[in-house]
């Protein structure tokens, strides 16, 4: 399977998965480029499309988490720099959405623990089944169910608090 066909089949899905983790279009594009470049370097390794799908999702998740962790580390350092304007925002100002509900929801998703966020995005945004999500994340379907349940509860509380503030 050539990389162009892979991009046509998975590009948009991978982009959304990364975007819901990183919440910056510019950085999401960078990561998607890295994902398909890694696939290009590993093209001899895989045969079937199913194998490719799992590989692309895994690499996208790992790269998104790495990026978020390095951002967090950078922010921790920035706190100690007197001339910096403090912690950089999770969502860059130019990408702040007009819709306050969506903006609040995106922030809430970003505050979820890594695994809960990944499970939620795969199942609720990418519409993957519990089994597929479990395979991508390398955990059991039961664990996926529990992760999504906890993520939903947290988001529900967040939305209720947000709507109460309005």
């Amino acid at each position, binding site marked *: 399977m050539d990389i162009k066909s892979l991009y046509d089949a998975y590009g*948009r899905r991978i982009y*959304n998965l990364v*975007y819901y983790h990183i919440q910056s*279009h510019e950085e999401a*594009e960078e990561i998607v*480029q890295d994902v398909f470049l890694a696939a290009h370097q590993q093209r001899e390794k895989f045969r079937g499309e199913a194998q490719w799908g799992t590989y692309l999702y895994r690499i996208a998740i790992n790269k998104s988490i790495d990026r978020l962790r390095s951002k967090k580390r950078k922010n921790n350092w920035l706190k100690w720099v007197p001339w910096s304007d403090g912690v950089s925002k999770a969502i860059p100002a130019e990408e702040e959405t007009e*819709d306050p509900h*969506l903006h609040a929801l995106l922030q809430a998703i970003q505050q979820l623990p890594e695994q809960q966020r990944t499970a939620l995005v795969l199942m609720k945004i990418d519409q993957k089944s519990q089994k597929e999500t479990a395979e991508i994340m390398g955990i059991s379907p039961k664990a996926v169910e529990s992760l999504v349940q906890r993520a*939903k509860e947290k988001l529900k509380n967040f939305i209720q608090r947000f709507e109460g503030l309005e």
Partner: protein
Amino acid sequence: MDNMKRKLPQFEPNPYLWTRIEGRMMRLANDTIHPILGWSLTAVVAGMLLLSISRPTINQEQDIDPYPSHNILYYE
């Protein structure tokens, strides 16, 4: 949660994203060709240098005069 589902949109990537990936793949291919060429050239030059050191050249062979007629001691 229904409210959440309705609220979570799907984003479209930049239409030029594939072109950028293609460009990076081409650059990567060039980057892998250049080192190969570079190392091959280095190996050839190093090999030639080693050969020139270990074996006397034709000129050096000619320099060894089996009949040193000019050497006066030879005739004495």
